[in-house]
């Protein structure tokens, strides 16, 4: 090949990189064989304790659900997994139709007209929703709940740097854990670009006042959801939401130590052209056959550049494929059963913990999805240590960010937990008093 180019050595091809900027090789070890790499990495990973060997009651936005093998079989199809973005529609009909089905599933769950093919995660969906609301109405205040995961809040803070939007917080009702409507009313005003509310909220509590919140919100209402909970609860669209976002991981994706995840993003048709991210549309081919393609690309960075709706390019497409496959494999019957099962498990587990002396669960009265706040008399750090010692992992400590709750933690449960896991958890708690 060098000969064909009239060159003597590979070095000739790098003659344009001057010695002033040349490095003398890479200061990392030499390559390993496949066998060595697999052995090495597997050995390192063995130091992790997974949900398989250590029942874990962490949630807070990410949930370890059972995913049928068919879902992984589908996402492992390398025609999907080793493709790039479907810029060339004619050879990419498979992923385009799959993503269109994903968009349709998200619209069915959320009651929105349009959904994009994903944002990075639930937190960046929130950041993008704030920017979108500002694009729609030019206003500058984003009203968010105090009961919000601090990770989400931190990401929102970064996303609003550009237009310099302001954040206003509204309180939660200390009894129910739902939005404090008086505080919400106070936080809103003529400069409100959007009101953001979550259901289930950070405490796992369903928000039962969405109709009232809609009437209080003077402009855009953005609702954060757990898509699995929507299988048995009303769509935010039914309450007049403009934008629906959420962490989509519970629909068929693993927790993956926090990534990759998938941000859900959906909106009403009237806001479509202000929506960030990639969308797939329906059309025909030259022979009149139904076909799919990326569309409304004039909103996106490669066309609109600095006036694009977002800078997002690479997103979380394969996670969207997993979500579509998961929902399709379960069907409405399966999805609703899983959601309902999660509600009942959380209810039962909270009741069991509540019976243990020195513990209160759920800390907030009313309906929860699959997690709830547990309060303890003893410092929660002691409880967490005792659980770890017993080979279990407790919920997320809340004291640092929610000191008003005292010694408290957020416990989640899903269908992966066995009765034995619950027994072990309760036994450790009983030993604390």
């Amino acid at each position, binding site marked *: 090949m060098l000969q064909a180019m009239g060159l003597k050595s590979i070095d000739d091809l790098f003659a344009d990189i001057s010695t002033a900027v040349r490095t003398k090789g890479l200061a990392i070890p030499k390559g390993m064989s496949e066998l060595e790499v697999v052995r090495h990495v597997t050995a390192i*990973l063995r130091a992790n304790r997974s949900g398989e060997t250590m029942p874990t009651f962490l949630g807070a936005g990410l949930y370890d659900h059972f995913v049928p093998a068919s879902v992984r079989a589908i996402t492992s199809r390398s025609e999907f997994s080793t493709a790039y973005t479907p810029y060339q529609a004619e050879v990419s009909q498979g992923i385009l139709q799959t993503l269109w089905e994903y968009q349709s599933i998200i619209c069915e769950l959320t009651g929105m007209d349009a959904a994009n093919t994903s944002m990075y995660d639930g937190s960046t969906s929130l950041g993008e929703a704030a920017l979108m609301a500002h694009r729609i109405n030019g206003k500058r205040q984003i009203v968010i709940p105090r009961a919000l995961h601090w990770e989400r809040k931190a990401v929102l803070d970064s996303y609003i740097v550009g237009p310099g939007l302001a954040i206003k917080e509204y309180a939660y009702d200390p009894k129910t854990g739902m939005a404090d409507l008086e505080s919400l009313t106070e936080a809103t005003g003529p400069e409100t670009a959007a009101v953001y509310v979550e259901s289930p909220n950070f405490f796992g509590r369903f928000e039962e006042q969405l109709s009232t919140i809609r009437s209080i919100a003077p402009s855009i209402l953005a609702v954060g959801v757990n898509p699995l909970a929507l299988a048995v609860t009303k769509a935010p669209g039914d309450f007049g939401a403009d934008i629906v976002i959420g962490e989509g991981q519970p629909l068929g994706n693993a927790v993956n130590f926090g990534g990759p995840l998938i941000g859900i993003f959906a909106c009403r048709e009237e806001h479509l052209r202000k929506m960030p991210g990639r969308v797939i549309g329906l059309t025909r081919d030259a022979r009149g056959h139904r076909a799919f393609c990326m569309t409304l690309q004039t909103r996106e960075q490669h066309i609109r550049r600095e006036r694009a709706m977002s800078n997002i390019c690479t997103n979380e497409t394969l996670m969207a494929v997993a979500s579509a496959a998961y929902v399709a494999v379960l069907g409405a019957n399966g999805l609703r059963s899983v959601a309902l099962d999660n509600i009942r498990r959380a209810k039962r587990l909270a009741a069991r913990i509540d019976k243990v002396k020195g513990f209160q669960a759920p800390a907030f009265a009313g309906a929860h999805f699959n997690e709830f706040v547990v309060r303890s008399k003893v410092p929660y750090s002691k409880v967490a240590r005792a659980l770890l010692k017993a080979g279990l992992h407790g919920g997320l400590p809340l004291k640092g960010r929610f000191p008003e709750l005292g010694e408290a933690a957020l416990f989640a449960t899903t269908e992966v937990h066995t009765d034995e896991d619950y027994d072990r958890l309760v036994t450790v708690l009983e030993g604390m008093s």
Partner: protein
Amino acid sequence: MNFRQAFYEEPILFEKKGNAVKTLDLSDVPPSLRRERLAIPNLPEHEIVRHYTRLSQMNFGIDTGFYPLGSCTMKFNPKFAEELARLVEVTRIHPDQDPSTVQGALRILYELQEILAKISGMDAVTLQPAAGAQGEFTGLLLARRFQIDRGEVRNEVILPDTAHGTNFASAGMLGFQIRELPSFDGRVDLNALERAVNERTLALMLTNPNTLGIFEERVVEIARICHDGGALLYYDGANFNAILGKTSPGQMGFDITHFNTHKTFTTPHGGGGPGAGPVGVKKFLEPYLPVPGIGFDGKGYVLDWDRPKSIGKVRAWFGNFALLVRAYAYILSQGSDGLAEVSERAVLNANYVRQRVQGHLPVPFSGLRKHEFVASGAPLKAKGVRTVDIAKRLMDYGFHPPTIYFPHLVEEALMIEPTETETKETLDAFADALIRITQEDPEVLKAAPHNASVARVDEVQAARQPTLSWRMLQNIQPR
């Protein structure tokens, strides 16, 4: 011609006839929230597996064939990395777990930070950004915070006219003014740069080699001009595959860089994502990196939240871990020797294909190319043939088309990046096809593709009446 893509008249999921809906006892759901109906069909599992298997067969991936999509570095994705990423010690660990229970994960992240710092010639790395564009966003946030800290208000970002669209969008998202720099002979015009840098310049973002595949030889002077003017220099790592072990952003004088793991370190792109976009910085920017840092305290791996000057967070938790595991495994398998060879082969392959086709399709601008080159389809315009027709026709020969109509500097652009993992036979077959296409009947080209699952897709119609969901389709044509 040796390619015929599968075609199934595959119904949309919602068009399939499902089994009966089961009645559920919803008494555990508050009455005001109860959903009575969910319009998702109930189908046997094997029907779903067939549905998506058929759809997958109507999709082209690297495992299907040659994929010279310029600036996307579509090389073989090693299968061992896939298997590692599917271990339960990757998939079923929660990011809020006590650090003592995820030492393996933290060790991989920590070591990957160290390795990426060495590869890029930077001092510190964050793995948090979810993709390259988010890496840009992160890098610009770091630059902004640094400039504010030293009491300067700088809100202009300089971008060459060959820059990726995401550079513009990332700067735009942060509210910065953009100064577009015209190129000279496909390179940064140093005189124009001298004039552009001023006391409002936050940073210059540069891809090197640039999107024409040309290495900016005068990068040291570019860095000097920027730094003399108080601006920072950002390295867009999209084209890292060209320089591994030869030079590094740090050596070239850059202050900030991002990586695209799905390009350089061959994590599968999943049909559009996920990726991962780690960011490396020089020492003076380290205090601003996102929280938490991942460190080693002599006994174990720890999360460091004590970064008072940090920009905060750009996404939840630590980054796209499962992708970072794949990148880590790939880098270990290549090592210093393998990675250097990656760039050598990638550059060799690109220059070889360029040499094969440039007599038939012009390749504007002088000098060597690195890992990719941009040809022009303009000569075929006289026959009424556009670059899009060439691209669609390439499908009939079993090749994924190159990136087209980018960079804008080249008329009717075809941006070709073969990567290092292709054989001479494949490169020759591709060059032969491209040359043959330039001589084919224009009507055949304009009607292409002929062998893909569907014929030319009407993108104009899709945008004219956006139909993005089953719900929107029902509103247009009631059942």
